[in-house]
């Protein structure tokens, strides 16, 4: 037996991608997008708010202008470079999505682990809360927050946080329920390990991969949600920009300058699509309980 176990080939990262080339491609695209945003100052020639009123609504072109390098994605109604704004705006979109998904994960996973581990009335109370929350118009509640707090990036994050914890709570609870009844946890109890130790050292590592999947999918979801609210004018405010806001501001110029709207929309689509494909790949590859398709 021991011999068999050691002779088993170690699974390399390349093996993980063997049956899922689309996920590998998505991961590379995501890394490129992240790096471009991170080094936006280096890869763009214009500042995002640097307007040139003589070059308003200029179509995309690879020819350099007399004032500087080419506007490869054209310019908007104020003569600002769409490509620069796409990268700086993307930072805002991703930051909002990331913060919302991350804080939601912290709250949801903590509550879900408590519910699953302790059971009884704690479980009852937490899960009823999740039930009530899931069957209520959460978008309207989020909009209520926006209304009383006023629009803006941080208020938008608070508003979106309202419904970002329930899915994590459900996932964490169901995973904990599976692990709790395992021999591993039972032996932990037997040797007198503390509740904290069992929860964070034994249960947590075993439920992490479905939660990472949930995180990636929720990140995609909240990038979309951010764009929706910013488009309506309830999110990020000028002079800051985000992909949703770019579409919202550019739509008045749809007929003369469709590129202002085209590129942010494609950016949202590509980012969200890649996140979805990578999220599903993580679930298929790293979750021992998932059924391989």
């Amino acid at each position, binding site marked *: 037996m021991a011999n068999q176990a050691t002779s088993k080939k170690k699974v390399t990262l390349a093996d993980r991608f063997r049956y899922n080339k689309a996920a590998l491609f998505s991961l590379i695209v995501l890394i490129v997008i992240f790096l471009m945003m991170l080094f936006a100052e280096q890869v763009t020639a214009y500042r995002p708010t640097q307007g040139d009123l003589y070059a308003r609504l200029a179509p995309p072109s690879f020819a350099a202008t007399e004032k500087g390098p080419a506007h490869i994605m054209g310019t908007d109604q104020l003569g600002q470079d769409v490509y620069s704004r796409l990268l700086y705006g993307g930072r805002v979109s991703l930051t909002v999505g990331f913060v919302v998904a991350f804080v939601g994960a912290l709250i949801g996973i903590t509550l879900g682990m408590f519910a699953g581990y302790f059971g009884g009335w704690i479980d009852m109370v937490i899960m009823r809360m999740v*039930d*009530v929350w899931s*069957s*209520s*118009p*959460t*978008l*309207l*509640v989020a*909009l*209520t*927050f*926006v*209304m*009383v*707090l006023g629009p803006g990036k941080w208020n938008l994050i608070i508003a979106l946080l309202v419904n970002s914890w329930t899915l994590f709570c459900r996932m964490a609870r169901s995973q904990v329920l599976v692990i709790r009844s395992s021999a591993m946890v039972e032996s932990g109890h037997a040797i007198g390990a503390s509740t904290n130790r069992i929860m964070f050292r034994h249960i947590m590592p075993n439920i992490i991969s479905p939660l990472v999947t949930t995180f990636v999918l929720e990140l*995609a979801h909240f990038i*979309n949600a951010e*764009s*929706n609210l910013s*488009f*309506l*004018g*309830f999110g990020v405010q000028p002079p800051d920009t985000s992909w*949703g806001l770019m*579409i919202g501001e550019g*739509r008045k110029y*749809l*007929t003369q300058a*469709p590129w202002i*709207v*085209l590129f*942010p*929309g494609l950016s*949202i*689509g*590509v980012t*969200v*699509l890649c996140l*979805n*494909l990578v999220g599903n790949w993580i679930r298929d590859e790293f979750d021992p309980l998932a059924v391989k398709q």
Partner: protein
Amino acid sequence: MGMGKYILQRLAFTILVVIGISILVFVLTHVVGNPVDIMLPLQATMEQRELLTQQLGLDKPMLEQLRIFLGEAVRLDFGLSWWQRRPCMEVIFDDLPLTAFLIFLASALSVVVAIPLGILAAYRRGSIIDRLLTVFSLSGICLPPFWIGLMLMLVFSVKLGWLPTSGTGTWKHLVLPAVAIAFRPMGHLAQIVRFEMIQQLNALYVITARAKGVDEIVLLFRHALKNIMTSSITMIGNDYAKQLGGLSASVEVVFGFPGFGRLISDTIENMDFPLLQAEVFFVAIIVCLINLLVDILYAAFDPRIRY
């Protein structure tokens, strides 16, 4: 447990949700925000402020205010909309039917397109059709619907001139908004139909039916389809409820469609607290009723489910 008792239990839950959400929104609007500051101009005098506070009943203790609000909400009286100076109920019922119909059209479209395509993709798994469908449904899920709406407008209204860009009145005004809204439910539905159908096609009853010589079309659409209906109905119901709960707002704004979604957006812009409370109240009821309807339909499609 009988069906009747189950429905009663669910209705009780609905009341709980509606009251809970109403209280939450009430507390948010009255504790975090101050209606008087919003309604009066900055240069208003202290006397004016106090008068309005009294008129709105905001000088009473919070619990007393909440009790009055809930008492009136039960009688469906939400008072006048601050922005439109009309009863909130009237404002909502002017716009709700139009959007309900628009989303119904979008749902119908997504069902008609997604179910046959999903079945076909599962049936010819791995083929070029299957791959095309996956790309199509994923883009439907990932691209923002308001952006899809703008692109549709650019092509079909601006370039081709086939359909109007905005407004309402004829069936032509409904086409583009309905299609833009339909993309996401279509993607969800196509994916779930494909996934479930693949499992059904591997089931023993399918092998038995084929051995008996049952026609493939009958097999797919009568036997297998019936078994995947429960998950499809959940999806359709969920998406419908979400759209009605404000998700359709951005598409309605794009097409200048005078519906409920745009009303919600205008409500927030105008900081109309009573109207928002009325909207939350109605949407909560409708969402819960849709969920209940979905559960009842379950039993109709799956005889194993008993309440």
